[in-house]
């Protein structure tokens, strides 16, 4: 399993936050891989049942892996690359992160 906390320095490791917690991941990681590499398997709750979801199809088809990134709601974690200082938050399965 790819671990966290490899050599620091831009280009090799990316530093980001998930739900307020500071994490790192290898450069070139998708958000899904970055979270899974940090032992986080679920980053979304379903609208109707409030159940935890994370990766499912891994290739951008199933839309199960939705996560909020830097204010962009419900993006596919398996398709989006994590970048330095990304603010990644759990998704509530809606396309809106502003104040209701």
């Amino acid at each position: 399993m790819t671990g966290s906390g490899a050599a620091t320095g831009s280009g090799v490791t990316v530093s980001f936050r998930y739900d307020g917690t500071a994490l790192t991941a290898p450069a070139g990681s998708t958000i899904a891989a970055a979270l899974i590499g940090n032992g986080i398997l679920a980053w979304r709750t379903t609208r109707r049942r409030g159940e935890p979801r994370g990766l499912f199809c891994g290739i951008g088809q199933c839309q199960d892996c939705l996560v909020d990134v830097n204010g962009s709601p419900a993006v596919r974690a398996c398709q989006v690359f994590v970048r330095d200082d990304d603010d990644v938050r759990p998704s509530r399965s809606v396309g809106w992160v502003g104040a209701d």
Partner: protein
Amino acid sequence: MRTEVAVVGAGPGGMSAALAAADAGCQVVLIDSASAVGGQIYRQSQRPGPGGDAVAGVGADARGGAGRRRGLPARLRRVAGHPRITLAMGVSVWHAGPAGSGFRLHCTGGQGAAADAADVVDARAVVVATGASELVVPFPGWTLPGVVTAGAAQAMLKAQQTLIGRRILVTGTGPLLLPVAAGLARGGARVAGVYEAAGIGPMLSGLPGIARHPGKLAEAAGYAAALARGRVRARSGWALAECRGRDRVEEAVLTRVDRHWRASGRARVVPVDAVAVSHGFVPVLDLSRALGCRDEPLARHPAATVVVDADQATSTTGVFACGEATGVGGAAKAELEGAVAGAAAARHVGRLDEAGFRARASGAVAGIGRAREFAALLARLYPLGDGWLAGLRADTVVCRCEDVAWEELTGALASGPSDLRSIKGLTRCGMGYCQGRVCGPVVQYAAARLTGRRLDAVGDLHTRHIMTPVTMGRLAAADAGEPDDAPGDAPGSGLGPAARDDR
């Protein structure tokens, strides 16, 4: 962006088609929603590394292939740097239709230069190489975190050098299970077992057929050897009955099954922290349908294939198809068909005359025949059983996006809805973010079985006029191009089954 040939899908079929068309002199745009070429089977590492060129969309050679290197073959790697091929990676086509004497593909996404350029692609010919999506039938606990498709486990490993767990069960049915398990084992995972639903009987009866494809037999033997070396238990005639766990999967319940996948008593509980499951593949048809191409439903599988002639031409003039879209059959079939499709596209736009086309296409014909024969064999070896229906509980989710429970689906079926569109309207199955990509084939299959009707009589959810979510602002700014005189279904009286409804 204006081009001669647009190829959608950059797996082996699409790459082969792009090369064939470009080698014949065409300007080609090769589009794929992934960040790099290769499709699923040649999935490239997305990490910085030797041999990778992120801008060109060609990743570094992937590690973790089953038993041998599965890097992108040099003959296909040529797409990067070909003077007449423009790569548009990370780009999704959200709408497609005829425009002028060709077709207009409305695109979203893209990185760098591709982002600006690929807003709209006008092409005189299109090659559909959109591949297939994975079929997973539901079972209690399948929505637990840690339960993923076999393709996801493979993609995570190849593209991201990440294992989905430390103790991974591989299960389901189909030729993908062995290579995925072998790849995971090679990648350092503890594979808790490979449990294939198809029994040993059908396998043995299929051996003569497989023996006609010695390369495939050797490949399978290689995977089996890799698993044996890793002391991974492999079983036939077993299916996953349930996954259990609190916040993630913690154990898997497997049962011996008969050839209909009905539990035949013996159960085994295996501690796991991840499950990779796959029950086959379903060709992706939204683009081909948007372009008016006819497809034909399969009799025993909730899927359909794009109808093509010997030159890979679809029922829409100027649109060609190759690869999984014309029938799930793997990389070799895709590559051979792609070569013909690309040459046919080149002929269509006038870059090749008939003789030139024949010279390029004739060599592939025999190989395509053999590849299709092998694909048909695989379909027989790994049929879809219906025993899993009996394993569903009232609260088992059948539509993952909308959290629709099995009892809601059966309740709706009690009203006697005539087709999947009506079932969707009553249950919300297929109305979520994935628009029926995951649940569509499952609900189609369940509805057909429960009401005693044929799969094609129930309909499907493959038609999507908006093929990927696109913002309202983007839609408002879309330029439809010249008025459509769309090919395919002409406006009719509305009588008879509406085969391609989108609701």
